[in-house]
């Protein structure tokens, strides 16, 4: 970004963003009559509409009971809000988008996002599950049994008749079984 001598061929470049993105204001109704106090920005219109709807919808909470008083009151509040919205500094960005961005930033969780999901760390919990073990020999304690439980020998299960195939045993048990089998041989 140095200053350049004037002797060489110099061209001027610029952005033309404003030629398309300029604030659209509403100053007249369809029949051409001027809207009092206008022109208004679209943001102002939206704020006015929202406040008006909100005001009327929540009349039950604050209303005086007389529509003749409530309606102008709501109108004044809505108009005030719209006037305020008009005072907002005009930036290059859409006011709604700015508001959404700020709201989004405020409400993000402290856990971040991973694989498009909010990371939720589950509290410490017990990894449960039952394992049915059949065996010819004595009692085995299931691996999930909490250590607090006193190691009382479980009543001997009836051995499955003619079922040499063992089901769902842990690796250690399989090793033990193998050892036993080899001893038999």
């Amino acid at each position: 970004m140095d200053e350049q001598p004037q002797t060489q061929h110099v061209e001027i470049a610029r952005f033309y963003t404003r030629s398309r993105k300029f604030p659209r204001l509403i100053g007249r109704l369809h029949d051409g009559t001027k809207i009092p106090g206008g022109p208004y920005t679209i943001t102002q219109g939206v704020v006015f509409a929202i406040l008006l709807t909100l005001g009327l919808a929540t009349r039950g909470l604050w209303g005086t009971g007389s529509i003749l008083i409530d309606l102008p009151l709501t109108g004044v509040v809505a108009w005030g809000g719209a006037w305020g919205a008009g005072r907002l500094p005009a930036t290059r960005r859409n006011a709604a988008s700015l508001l959404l961005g700020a709201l989004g930033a405020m409400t993000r969780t402290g856990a971040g996002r991973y694989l498009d999901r909010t990371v939720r760390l589950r509290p410490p919990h017990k990894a449960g599950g039952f394992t049915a073990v059949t065996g010819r020999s004595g009692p085995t304690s299931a691996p999930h049994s909490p250590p607090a439980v006193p190691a009382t020998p479980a009543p001997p299960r009836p051995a499955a008749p003619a079922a040499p195939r063992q089901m769902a045993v842990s690796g250690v048990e399989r090793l033990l079984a193998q050892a036993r089998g080899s001893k038999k041989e």
Partner: protein
Amino acid sequence: MRIPATAMAEHLMWTRSGVIWATWRITPLASGFGTARMKRMTKLHHQALFQALRGEALFLGLCADLDPVTVVERMLDGVRIDQCPDWADEVERTLDALEKVPLGTRAFWLSVPLAGTNFKARAMATFRAADTRVRDIAALPRELPRPAEVSAALRAARDVEERIPKVFSAVPATAAENIWIALHAQQRGLAADTTVPLPAPEKDPSTLLDADLARFQLPAGMPNPWLDEGGQSDVDRASQFLPFKRKYLKVQSPYSDEPSYQVLQALVSGPKAGWQSPGVEWISAVDDLPMDVDWALRMTVTPAADVRRRNKRAEDALKDQYTQQGGNDSITGGASDLAEVAETLEAYHRSLNQSDKEVETQVTIIFAVGDPTPDGAKLRGRVLSDQYKSFDFLLEAPLGGQEELWWAMLPGVPTTRLPRELAQITTGRELATGIPLTASELGDMKGARFGVNITTGRQGQILRDIEGNNKADLSGSFGVVAEKGAGKSVLLKCELGAVVDRGGRVLAIDRTEAEEYATFALTLRPDHTAVAGLLNPQWNLDPLRMFGPKEGARMLQSLFAVMLGLPVLSEGGVFLSSLLEGDYLAAHDITSVRRLLSHLRDDLGGTPEAKQLLSLMNVVASKDIGEVLFNDGLKPLDVNATAIVFLNAGLELPDRTELEHEHLFRELSLEKRFGRAMYSMLVAVMRQVCFHDKNQLAGAFFDECHAITSSPEGARELKLFFRDDRKHNAFAAVGSHDPRDFGDEESRGLIKTRYVMRQTDETLAPHALNWMANGLGEDPAMVRMVTRELSPIDPSTGTVPLHRRGEGIMRDAAGRMGKFRKTLPERPDRRAAVLSTPAQQVSS
């Protein structure tokens, strides 16, 4: 949003959104500086690129923060390290020195969503995306695109590739590069980058196997980041509702221990009245900052014809606004705003109509900086935005939009609402003024460390590979132009040392009283160094003794022709030639000039020719200056020494007027005749030695080159050197304060690598610049740089501050230009030897 890639083949990426993206590595154009014409060409190439594209495109300029080991490996490449212990030591110390400085290069990519496929292919890609999603949910194995889909996508990608101007030499990016881009984005600012993967070498179609055609890479290597906008995880729950001062993104990559904090800013407005080009290179200007800034240009390119319709609608809306806002004619009111919009629209319409090729570019310009700490990242972001603000370009880091912008910098991610909202509208011609795809790299890919590239704020290392230049059929010869004390001889001595350390040979002519080069050469390889004084000789420089009768005789004839005024075809010259014939010399056992003298006196005493030649030779032989040729008691110079320095201090030379005017020439003193003849013989000797062995690099160093080129014979010998250097793996290094001392225009043009250091004289500086590149001397900014901005002298101390010493501009063998600062050798003894100035040596 998630990492978009679902499958990668060649340079294609199938994405979750169903669009196939193709990515190319772009070779940047040389920037730095140059003549106005060169700058204009750079801009026009960019313009051609932008105007050739259609639809969406994403340009990336990412700074790879290099590991010093990479640089050091390049210094070792091609050197037999077991034979060069000095170089091994130097490289080891360089590694330590480089640990302390940031090293980096910028790599460029263009990524394009392929829209050019047919309806069937697009439907298939969408189906593929949906299928992938279902399979992911159901934990089923993924199905890869079929060969027909791949070839359809490759065809579409080829259509895009053909539109990229050849000057950018777009190379299809590999899956490794895509993964590098993703990982770099997650580790920005952590200095954890690996070297950017090299683009795939071009495949030879004859060796293509079917298996090569569609080798898929599942994006398993693609790291999935953990993202936390505003660093919410760093603050307590109450503060999480106040994100206004935390406009950054915290990214944790699975491959690093610490998170990276990044600030992403988009360009939201430029100077209303526009900017000058060349002059305001508003995108490549990020390289002027002393920190790494990544950028992305996410753009939509639309042909002018379609844009005219859009502008028509804008005009209608504008007219309506005049009605809506009518009556409000205050200066600061809406009507004046509308006038501004009207003016912009009019200017835009005019600009679009300048060329039929013109396009509209809606471009979101995103800059990203990263740091290991949030405060560091914010500071970097502020420095960047302040720098741009000072030129009336405004950057904005949207609150709540940091993550969206971060994704927008990745290939394969569809353009979302926020980047669209932040897009700037301009023409392809005007976007090109940012000249984003440029780099200021200088020097060679490997070789000796020459200096630091200070063209921009991002300081890269410059390596010089003279032997590599020779082998690549470029010339390894170089020239340095600088005023006294600007660092010319330090540069020459550093290069001389590097050549010897890397296993080469050097010869030099030393004209200094302090024997600067001889002292330096003796510190290199003392046992392999010969220092030959011409006035107080320790070695005999008789060509017959140094090179034997065949080559020596020819040199001797040329020497006597100049020294004794015996033209080869004159009577005396023909007689001398008959004596110097091989058989004659052998038959009479003439092995030296002294013996020739005795032969003339004792055996041929009677003939008048012999008498005349004898008396002429005696004029020199009887004086002290003749000792170096006629004293057979001295050993002949060992032409196989690794370093040979000829000491010429005190040797008188005729000036130009004496050579050009006959009456002055006739009255030339013996010393001047001797000096002139010896100089041209020395150049011939050096050429002979350097051209002797093709397998070993040999360099001839001529500082104060005017001493050689002031005589036509010397200039001719030097030109012969420049002409044939590369064929013999030799190079000449010349130095002077004026490039015209390097010989005629042809000789000067033959020097490919050129350095210009400080030259405060305003008449000499343009000469130096015009030698560097034609027309550069007419640029006042360049003249100002050479006269005032390179290694400026601090008036309060009268010296150049240490950190500014050795600055200059260079043009490398490839023709690129930029600014450098010469670095000194890292070995302390070598550094001391290089820096010892003549004044110090005289006093010591």
